């Protein structure tokens, strides 16, 4: 595939993925309000459109039309930069996530991943260090939170952002360490390679158990640690002390209104998407699923994307379900949990996994 076609394909993929991602974010807010409403024995949005389906549109119009306040004593440059930084960093991590194998349109074959390439021999490759890029972008996302609170020149915002950034950098460690078990089993940092090493079935003692070769089965502890650390990274219940409404007014985004607040909001939901995509890629086999033979060829080409979407939807639903069910941790409980329980558990997981991998050859 020559350079010009590659660039055109990449631009189309970027536009499509960003559009789908932002629409997905908008409808995740609808899903959240509906599901939490039902958990709390009430309806959720019902008035705007059938089943309240146009509620995100109404919210979007509200955000655009609201007055965009710039309080007097804020540090203007950082005040405007912080939400943009948060949103841009959360969108960058979508670039390395593979949604499926390849798709062939009008004779051109392209990989279903923004940063994926097909070599002249037809082999798909992607970035060697895809997983590290996602971790790096998560680390830079902490700046959005820290600068937002500091530039707002208000006590509540500063305290909220200090707590939030301390929480995020503490749980980044457990997040990274929980993924080392996956690296030991798959042998590569590239997301496509990790999904590829989850194909087939587990073979125990010479028999083919018909259990898929997903890494959730050996790495159940790693999965548990990853999920908890990711919930803390995305500031969701039970770890959402920094932005809880009943606590520090609204934490680090107290002074933000209209579009800047909407950007923080979108950044949080896009982070949720990234975590859900990573969980399904690393632990649940990505786009592997049963092969349905009765579909037409285009349907069969898009079937992996459907399996991937179903797994991501399951994880988003899990996020919303936990939000409706659990209370939130107090801040000192949260930090103690991250340092004194999750981190030693993640290290123990690495040690045990490496022993088993070395013993099996």
């Amino acid at each position, binding site marked *: 595939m020559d350079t010009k076609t590659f660039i055109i394909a990449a631009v189309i993929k970027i536009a499509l993925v960003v559009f789908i991602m932002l629409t997905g974010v908008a409808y995740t807010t609808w899903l959240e309000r509906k599901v939490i409403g039902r958990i709390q024995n009430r309806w959720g949005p019902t008035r705007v459109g059938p089943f309240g389906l146009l509620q995100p549109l109404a919210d979007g119009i509200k955000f655009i039309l609201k007055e965009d306040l710039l309080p007097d004593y804020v*540090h203007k440059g*950082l005040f405007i930069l912080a939400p943009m930084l948060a949103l841009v960093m959360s969108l960058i991590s979508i670039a390395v996530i593979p949604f499926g194998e390849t798709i062939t349109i009008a004779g051109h074959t392209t990989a279903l991943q923004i940063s994926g390439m097909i070599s002249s021999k037809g082999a798909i490759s992607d970035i*060697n*260090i895809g997983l*590290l*890029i996602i*971790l*790096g972008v*998560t*680390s*830079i996302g*902490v*700046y959005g939170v*820290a*600068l937002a*609170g*500091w530039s707002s020149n208000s006590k509540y915002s*500063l305290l909220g*952002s*200090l707590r939030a*950034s*301390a929480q995020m*950098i503490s749980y*980044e460690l457990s997040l*990274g360490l929980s993924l080392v078990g996956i690296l030991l089993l798959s042998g590569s*940092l590239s997301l496509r390679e990790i999904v590829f090493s989850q194909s087939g079935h587990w073979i125990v003692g010479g028999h083919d158990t018909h259990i898929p070769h997903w890494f959730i089965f050996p790495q159940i502890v790693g999965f548990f640690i990853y999920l908890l650390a990711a919930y803390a990274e995305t500031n969701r219940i039970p770890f959402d002390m920094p932005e809880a409404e009943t606590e520090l007014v609204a934490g680090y985004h107290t002074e933000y209104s209209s579009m800047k607040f909407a950007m923080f909001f979108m950044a949080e939901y896009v982070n949720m998407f990234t975590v859900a995509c990573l969980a399904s890629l690393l632990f649940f086999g990505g786009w592997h699923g049963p092969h349905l033979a009765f579909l037409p060829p285009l349907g069969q080409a898009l079937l992996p994307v459907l399996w991937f979407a179903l797994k991501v939807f399951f994880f988003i639903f899990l996020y919303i379900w936990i939000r409706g069910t659990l209370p939130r941790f107090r801040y000192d409980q949260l930090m103690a949990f991250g340092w004194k329980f999750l981190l030693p558990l993640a290290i123990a997981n690495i040690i045990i996994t490496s022993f088993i991998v070395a013993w099996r050859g």
Partner: protein
Amino acid sequence: MIIHQVLFIVFGFICVAGAVNLLVQRHPINSALSLVVVMASLALIYLLLGAEFVAAIQVIVYAGAIMVLFVFVIMLLNAGAEERTRGSSVALFVGVPGMIVLAGTVGWLLVHSGGQLGGVTISSSSFGETHQIARLLFKDFLLPFEITSVLILIAIMGAVVLGKREN
């Protein structure tokens, strides 16, 4: 390979601009953010040099953890913009020309040895991959690796003790 040179010049320019901004800004938070920009563009230059793992580690550890620590401390201590005191004027008139002379001498020497040093390229062979670095780190450089882990432990203990309030 003209694209390689263009990319290097662009990222190098961003690096130097960020470093100059670090010196020029009065408020430490602006200096900290320009240092983050310098580190990010250095990570991109490492990618040009084929060091993909080092580039990722630069972003994760340096720009994403060490600089967050700096920004934290600046936010916590809430120090304002710095004032001019007497000592710095003298250093300004002697130091800036001195550094320009030093950097200029090194640069002139390097440019005029030009051909003898050769060039670097983005090589197509696998170089700087994670498993190669891991092999070196855990076999040839195992002792320094273990010593650095003890060093980090000592640093953690020192930071905790120094940061404690006395009451």
